[in-house]
């Protein structure tokens, strides 16, 4: 049985798709057979981030409607043969998704995958609800700003009440916090919420802090998940996230501002 992970946030533009691509790649690189599904029907993006947009023939909706088999629609990643992508349909909308249809596809995938990563669309409407409904774990992607935190809080309420696990009174979805686009310098100068401020409101298990990094945008443009850029801080942070999720202990990095040349020379005096 596969473990189903939903990457969700409520708010848009916080880095859900970047995170989905990175952690799916990270899990696959560790040797786990992983599928990543784009639930953002009508605003297909995941295939771009993973650089497979030119190989999309069939999509998630075709599989739900029985117009294509799962094997026909799944795209094997060219960087890692353990990673498969199920793209969204660009010509349809979220109404094409159905609870039974999604359940059927996830059941079938569960048979021979270890992890299924569901890239949720923004919002709290049908697409987002279906992406999280069958989840076992939730990665709540939050930016250190008040509206993102508020939306994540709302999403956490939905996760704890509208999922399959909640409806069947099973063990609740395990919720993790992923703080993205974190700028330690701006936190220090008080322009941005810090980790403590966010945790005061959300109080979740922290899976990782992804620092704001130029490499994220260039990786997206190149269609290569940022986790493969091992030199970048964001790539390293995502690698830590995957390790922590798999149960390894990794100290949290990138919380404090980088020391400048002079302070490195003379030691961090406060």
């Amino acid at each position, binding site marked *: 049985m596969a473990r189903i992970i939903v990457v969700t946030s409520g708010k848009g533009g916080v880095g859900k798709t970047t995170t989905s691509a990175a952690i799916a790649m990270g899990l696959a690189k560790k040797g786990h057979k992983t599928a990543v599904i784009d639930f953002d029907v009508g605003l297909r993006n995941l295939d771009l981030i993973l650089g497979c947009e030119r190989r999309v023939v069939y999509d998630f909706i075709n599989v739900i409607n029985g117009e294509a088999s799962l094997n026909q629609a799944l795209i094997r990643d060219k960087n890692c043969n353990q990673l498969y992508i199920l793209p969204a349909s660009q010509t349809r909308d979220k109404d094409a998704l159905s609870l039974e249809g999604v359940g059927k596809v996830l059941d079938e995938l569960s048979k021979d995958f270890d992890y299924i990563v569901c890239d949720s669309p923004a919002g709290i409407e049908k697409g987002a609800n279906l992406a999280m409904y069958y989840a076992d774990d939730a990665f709540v992607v939050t930016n250190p700003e008040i509206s993102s935190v*508020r939306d994540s*809080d*709302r999403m*956490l*309420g*939905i996760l*704890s*009440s*509208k999922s399959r696990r*909640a409806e069947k*009174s099973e063990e609740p979805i395990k919720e993790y916090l992923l703080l993205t686009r974190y700028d330690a310098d701006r936190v220090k100068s008080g322009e941005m919420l810090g980790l403590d401020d966010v945790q*005061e*409101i959300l*109080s979740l298990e922290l899976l990782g802090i992804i620092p704001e990094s130029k490499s994220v945008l260039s990786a997206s443009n190149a269609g290569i998940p940022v986790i493969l850029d091992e030199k970048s801080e964001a790539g390293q942070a995502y690698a830590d996230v995957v390790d922590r999720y798999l149960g390894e202990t990794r100290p949290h990095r990138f919380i404090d501002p980088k020391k400048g040349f002079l302070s490195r020379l003379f030691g961090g005096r406060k």
Partner: protein
Amino acid sequence: MLNTSPVLEFKSSTFFAPILILCSHDLVAIEEALQEKIRLAPEFFRDSPLIIDFRELNKLHLDLDFAQIVQLLRRVGFFPVGIRGGNELQNKQARELWIPIDTVRELGGTITIGETAKPEPSQPAAPQPAAVAPREPQPSIAPPAAPAPATLITHPIRSGQRIYATGDLIIMSQVSAGAEIMAEGNIHVYNTLRGRALAGVHGNTDARIFCFDLQAELISIAGDYKTSEDLNKQKYTHPVQIYLQNHALIIKEIA
């Protein structure tokens, strides 16, 4: 124009009113049964408001003149204040007598609305309030409600969630901004309260709110409220209790 005090004020409140479920159209039998009930509890029924429920009667296709039953009820000392489940003719008659139609809404036990945050499974479900009379062949009226058990919640109440408790509400975790907690009794929050908290929602002016860290958006007891604009004038560093005194909310730190 110096005197600017308002002429009137609207307030929302909830009252207890028995519902009379009619299962027979025999006016003589009804009157006898009512007299019997009143003899058993004269104080309870004295000048009591009453809502007349025609659903059973209409299910049995028994015809009853609304004006006649109202006359009968007034004669034995009730004040009919509402009708529900009436047919077209009965509703028309009710309107002519200025008696409101189908305005009675029922509240279930522990109601959670929207994304329901479930009460702890170990807690027994709150019983139905006594608003609904048992369906016996004789007209009957439920006894006053026993106090509802407290609802205990140990997980965080997230933004957008609403919790309703028929008795006291005890929350061990935080209540987020944008969340709403309501109780007919007292509210205890053993953590930070950032959302809205409404105690004594059925008009219990003795209800209180207790919380460890008051950062609420709104607090209300029995309909009297304060918003964060008023609340934030003072910073509370200790746990507080909030109660009602002469329609004013008093916030006091618990030393």
